[in-house]
């Protein structure tokens, strides 16, 4: 639809296509006839029959379509945006976050805060990092803006807890160092595209 048509607010002058429907009953008698014919048509029992069949199949035949949560869990799309994870560098095990503050800046809910400091190796150290999950809207901007693929959305959808604070600090989100070999590369928003190499122009600095 063009913008001009969209802006035409003279409702009723457009060329609508009319459906070929029977007229709605007007008098009381006509309405009564319609109710009786629909009630006694038997379609209701067709539906009930389907329900009955499925119930018998699942109770007796063991052919259930429901997931038996929490014993069974469905796979989650890599683009799903669950509780955040902070990843580590695979080689050194050091956390990837460089403390640039872009996630903090872009966050529309203003729920990310970090403390940084100058460490003894003359590097920027992230001394603490936190997300206020009471305010987080799981929009994924932080993961998208992160230049290091350090903050990503994980697949942890079970966030029932006594306190939200129990998974909101740097250590809670960081890949445990002994599980480094299990760390998955993130495929969701902000991840490197499969054809990233084609899009990069080499600089002459590669001598």
């Amino acid at each position, binding site marked *: 639809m063009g913008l001009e048509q969209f802006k035409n607010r003279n409702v009723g002058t457009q060329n609508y296509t009319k459906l070929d429907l029977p007229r709605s009953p007007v008098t009381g008698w006509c309405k009564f006839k319609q109710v009786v014919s629909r009630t006694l048509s038997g379609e209701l029992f067709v539906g009930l029959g389907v329900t009955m069949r499925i119930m018998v199949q699942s109770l007796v035949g063991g052919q259930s379509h429901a997931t038996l949560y929490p014993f069974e869990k469905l796979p989650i799309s890599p683009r799903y945006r669950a509780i955040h994870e902070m990843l580590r560098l695979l080689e050194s095990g050091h956390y990837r976050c*460089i*403390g*640039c*503050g*872009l996630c*903090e*800046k872009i966050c529309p809910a203003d729920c990310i*805060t*970090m*403390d*940084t*400091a*100058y460490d003894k190796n*003359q*590097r*920027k*150290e992230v001394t*603490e990092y*936190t997300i206020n999950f009471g305010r987080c809207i799981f929009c994924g901007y932080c993961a998208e803006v992160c*230049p*290091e693929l350090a903050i990503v959305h994980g697949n942890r959808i079970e966030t029932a807890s006594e306190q939200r604070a129990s998974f909101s600090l740097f250590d809670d989100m960081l890949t445990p160092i002994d599980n480094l070999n299990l760390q998955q590369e993130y495929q969701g928003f902000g991840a490197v595209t499969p054809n990233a190499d084609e899009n990069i*122009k080499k*600089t*002459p*600095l590669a*001598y």
Partner: protein
Amino acid sequence: MSQINIKIDGQEYTTNEGEYILNAARANDIFIPAICYLTRCSPTLACRICLVEADGKQVYACNAKVKDGMEITVNTPNILKERKAIMEVYDVNHPLQCGVCDKSGECELQNYTLEIGVDSQSYSIPDTKRETTNWSSVLHYDAGLCIVCERCTTACKDMIGDAAIKTTKRGGAALDKGLKGAMPKDAYAMWNKLQKSVIAPSNGTEFTDCSDCGECAAVCPVGALVSRDFVYTSNAWDLKRVPATCAHCSSGCQIYYETRPASIENRDEKIFRVTNEWNYVSLCGAGRFGYDFENRVEGKDKIAFAKAIEAFNKAEVIHFNSTITNEEALMLQTLKEKKGVKLINREARAFQRFLNCYSKASGNSLYTTDFKEVMASDFVMSVGSSLRNDNPNARYAFNSVQKMNKGAGLYFHPVGDNLIPSFGKTIETFAHKVGHEEAALLMIIKLFADESKLPSSVKEQLDTDFVELLGGDTEKFDKAMVKMLKKKENFSLMIGEDLYFHEKAENLAKLIAVIEASSDVKVAMIPPKTNSLGVALICDLDNEASGYTIGYNESGDFRLSALGDGDLDIPAMNQQEGTLTNMHKRVTPTNAALEYNGYELNDIMGEILSAPKETIDWTAYLPTDRGFKAVEFDSLPNGYTNDGTENRGYLLDTTSTDVDEVTVDKFDDGKTLDGDIAYRCNPQRQFNDFSDKSHQIFEEFGLYASASKAESLGKRVIVEFDKGNLTLDVIVDERMEGDIVAVPDFKSAENIYELFGESRYKSVVIREV
């Protein structure tokens, strides 16, 4: 200065004659890219990006002056090519670590790379390892990020006068000669220089020997120079900028307190740094690094407040200092008028007395010139002020005259100083005897006055050979003076605190009036402390008083203190709104950077007399007969316009009336101090308890002496005054010369003013402990 017309990109503009093209464009809101140029400094020509076409020729906008009818084109295809190449070269080997860099978000390299549209790199060269170093207790230099624009060295030399840093050899690979023809000319020349240099302390060591003002870090366009305390603690965009006025000395510089929540744990606002409009104002180390002196309180302490009310009701004396806003000074004056308390403020009282004597003798309600005009003069003199320590802006002005206006200077001060002569080649210093201040003024009269305009009482005193009396060599001086006076048109004189705290203060004030009346020399005075001028104008101060005393940041029977150690807490200057009167005779607004939820003086006023709701409601009631204006606080601006015009608060009105001829006393050259002399003078970067409280100001309370004197004194000494003793550590000040020692007054608890009385110099006995 006459006005001329120029055309920029076909548009007609009016500008001052003799202005650089870049400044003329900036004043008219035209954007010409420039990295290395600083408004109040000489052009460096390091970046070459300000290339423009003027009357068909390519010139650098930062060092080409406008001519009448000049036609300027900012962008031509060739210039755009040059600029793009220059920016590409700047990006060669500049680490792509914007993510961790402190400058990211306010970086000129980032901005210009985007503005000029560098989207690919055509050049390369092997990088050199450049180490990160700490130059001093506050300066952090990351050579890897440095683009050698030389803004830091220029500011340090032309504005500050320390010249503590310079460009030095980098030892980088040489450029490929083939590039010379292949790449744009200016870009090649810039790169050639850049590839050879890096910045380092100019004394040849690893550490700078300077006043730690941090101005180099302020002007740095990239993240190479950052204060050690700020490195990697916050991003520029996280900080909230609060425009304020620095409250450490009478310069009253415009600053921004930059705040954000302290940390994840502590969500209270904290000041992370202080920044300034470095194109128009230079800060000192105290202003830039002495910012965390706030007084944090839990809440309103009702019991202490009730006691304070009781104390105010029976108070006979209020003892305060000049670290106070005009509004609060007005409250104290109101207390005096309504309740008859006496007001004691030693430094402001001395200044007030001096100003009154001067007004009586000259007919001017205030000194006639300000330090902006001093900066524009080409012959500057200083009497009675230890320029390096008393007031940074006065010192910067003295230096700037030498560097920017090809000026000359005369410096009269009993305490020898080896920094002042290094400002320029045409400076004569006189380390005269204490007590010869009148001779210094008489010498200025002899040099510059029109004899026909002199009163007879002065004329008859001019036969003395003042140069010799002040410790100079007449023949040599006369010769030097001929050279110094060449092509000089504007003369200025700065007067310092020594003259206010002087036995003959009245006579000195008269002599100054004579200088102004009989010569072209313009006189500016340095108020002794932060708001001494405001207090001197607003309050009717008393000389001596006794009885139940309330101390406002000073000693007393009941103490209001912003340092957190008094009987009732009051807000510190970075937690207050109000106005300050600075030495430029300007009433400037300051805002609260940090929250304060306790009681303030206005609450006490409201309880015992009547007061409006807020402290700033007093602003409109400042005394108009003393030059203040009846304007609301909220209508006061606090900033600079693009052409450098100071648009802050308002200027005090000054009036002038005719007066009779003055009669000055006969100068007595025998009245000098001998033996060991102590001078009441703070170290650089230290002004009051508040600068002392700040964690980045390290200058200690001790006895400052020249290296040779310190050696003869030993490590720790007792200084015996006639009214008491002080035990102090001896600290060497390499910049000091001679035998006079300096005793700081920044700790109010030490009651230094009591020991010195009505003079800044005292004969003392110094014994080693």
